[in-house]
């Protein structure tokens, strides 16, 4: 009897709690609008993926600050779990997509060209946004046929992560600065089951080498996979594994990705981005490592991966939505990105602050000025597939000639 009574009491409590909780936010917003002006509060939905609780916290903190400035704009975060582009695509089709949302540079051309995004140029002019402060490589990834569709929120570049202890042991004083030095270092570092370098079969990594060699897989709106410069670069990249045997893929080392192999001390060097820092802090807290700019070939080059906030063309509150984008990618919003240190702030002025705060990560910021965005037009995913297959075939020894592998890849994309 007593038990039953108790459970009913608990139930009533829960019902009341939910009802009250449901009521309270709307009440506070109502009272706020009365004191402000008679503008009706609007709700802006923000779509994002969340790679970590730390990333979620950045956005929540940014929005708390935003609310102080714009009390009558409510922001509702919609986290998409699982395949982001799949879900976003269906939401856009069903007209239930958020007002503003994350967009990665790779699928951006498809969305920009299909007219589901609102061009931001008009708003940029209207609200006087300083777009020249953005790193040009980042902003250009979200421009299509002369219009700007997104403002970059942050980015990451590739750099050389090297194990300082292993370097010392091998008698190398400085991280390699050229291709020759890289090969030399890899040779010296390979011993006792440890490889000098871990290299993944991924265009997102070896494209940096292609550009260092003056090549490019996408030029003037067309795939250009089989340029001789590209073949040379790929040959150099794969050669570490197949010819010199001073590197291997993470899979062959029994690891999931470059980060795992580097953390497990199975490789002395890895080419990765800023996401390695929190990862290594957790997985290998006592690993003594340094971050250097990627070694240069004929020229310096690295990859830049960026994500922007874009606006849904069917948003009902475009002005408010833009205010949110402006805030999140503006100096105030970017301050939170600097503090968190997960990714780099997209504004040049804030990049300087980041370097001040994290001098040991300077290489990541310095790379931005000569970085190539991760984007290859409308056929981007196909180019990536074909290039990866070419690299895979070379590493697995199915083809020995890099030029031939890339010729095949070009043919595959061409049709």
């Amino acid at each position, binding site marked *: 009897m007593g038990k039953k009574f108790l459970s009913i009491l608990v139930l009533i409590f829960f019902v009341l709690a939910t009802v009250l909780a449901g009521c309270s936010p709307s009440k506070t917003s109502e009272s706020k609008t009365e004191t402000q002006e008679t503008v009706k509060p609007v709700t802006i939905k923000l779509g994002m993926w969340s790679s970590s609780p730390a990333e979620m916290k950045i956005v929540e903190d940014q929005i708390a600050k935003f609310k102080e400035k714009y009390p009558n704009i409510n922001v509702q975060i919609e986290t998409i779990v699982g*395949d982001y*582009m*799949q879900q976003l*695509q*269906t939401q*856009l*089709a069903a007209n239930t997509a958020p007002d503003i949302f994350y967009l990665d540079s790779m*699928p951006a051309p*498809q*969305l920009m060209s*299909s*007219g*589901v995004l609102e061009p931001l140029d008009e708003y940029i002019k209207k609200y006087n946004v300083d777009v020249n402060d953005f790193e040009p490589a980042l902003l250009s990834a979200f421009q299509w046929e002369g219009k700007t569709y997104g403002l970059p929120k942050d980015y990451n570049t590739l750099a050389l992560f090297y194990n300082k202890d292993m370097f010392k042991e091998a008698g190398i004083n400085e991280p390699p600065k050229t291709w020759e030095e890289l090969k030399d270092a890899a040779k010296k570092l390979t011993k006792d089951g440890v490889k000098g370098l871990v290299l993944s079969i991924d265009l997102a990594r070896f494209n940096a080498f292609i550009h260092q060699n003056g090549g490019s897989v996408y030029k003037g709106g067309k795939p250009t996979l089989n340029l001789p410069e590209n073949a040379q670069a790929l040959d150099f990249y794969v050669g570490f594994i197949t010819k010199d045997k001073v590197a291997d*893929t993470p*899979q*062959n*080392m*029994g*690891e999931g990705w470059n980060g795992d192999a580097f953390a497990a001390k199975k490789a002395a060097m890895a080419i990765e981005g800023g996401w390695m820092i929190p990862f290594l802090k957790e997985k290998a807290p006592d690993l003594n490592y340094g971050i250097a700019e990627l070694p240069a070939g004929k020229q310096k080059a690295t990859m830049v991966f960026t994500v922007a906030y874009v606006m849904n063309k069917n948003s009902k509150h475009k002005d408010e939505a833009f205010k949110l984008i402006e805030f999140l990618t503006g100096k105030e919003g970017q301050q939170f990105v600097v503090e968190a240190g997960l990714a780099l702030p997209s504004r040049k002025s804030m990049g300087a602050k980041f370097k001040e705060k994290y001098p040991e990560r300077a290489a990541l910021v310095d790379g931005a000025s000569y970085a190539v965005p991760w984007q290859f037009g409308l056929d981007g*995913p*196909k180019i990536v*597939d074909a290039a*990866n*297959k070419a690299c*895979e*075939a070379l590493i*697995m020894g*199915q083809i020995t000639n890099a030029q031939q592998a890339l010729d095949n890849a070009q043919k*595959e994309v061409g049709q």
Partner: protein
Amino acid sequence: MGTKMAMRKRYLYEALTGYAFMLPFIASISIFLIGPLIYAFIISFKEFSFLNPGASRWIGFENYIKLFSDPTFKRALLNTTLYSLGVVPTQLIIALILALIVNSDIKGKTFFRVAYYIPTVTSTVAVSVIFLYLFKADGLVNALLAKFGIQGPTWFYDVRFALPSIMMMAIWSSVGNYMVIFLAGLQDIPSELYEAAEVDGANKFQRFFKITLPMLRPIVFFNLVMSLIGTFQVFDQAYVVSRGTGGPLDATMTVVLYIYRTGFRDFNMGYASAMAFVLFVIILILTLIQRRLFKEETY
């Protein structure tokens, strides 16, 4: 006359009641299954992207024609066929053997029944992740092989071994399901038949081939169809193991994985729908052939 009218009325009333009971199902199936199916059939004749449905255009059979010259689709079809040919017979034979074992009077059969069934109720993604660990370059399997002096391959990352590895995984994880169905069928066979056979002096093998198998025929047919459909739709193992790429070098590219990539990554829903219908027709034809082979009266 009067009674006929009354009967008719009653028949109508009963029919209406029946439909009323089915209404929730009919409504949900038409909204969530038949509707989308028809829609997908229509867009398979279009160049269609969800991002911009307004700009889709009618291209007739172009998607279907393109399919048959698409090397990746051909590869995916080949992989799926190989996968099916490998998995279906192996899985059914093992399932039948297991069912016979757990149907006999061995000790602890309840334990075995549960043990064999557990993989079936485990999520494929979880199973795939465990297998990735077991079969990684320096994983448990290779450590075991090394004890016998065999240098193991990298399994999931080796062009020759990737598909067989997935096949092994599929067999291991779904065999329990078919075992349970076989078991139900075995227990439905009247024991008098065996008793009579025993009296007639039939040995174990004769009893199995003359009684058990013929009596199980409808169950075998059912399992065969289900297994075939399941294997032709293989997706999640391939997706997890290759991280959605179908690699290495398309070795694990299956038809459904290619459909998924075309629709959701290349934003080409029309082409993806065309592929889905080709797959549907293939499965339909295979099922009809099987029905023929097993003859309708037994089903």
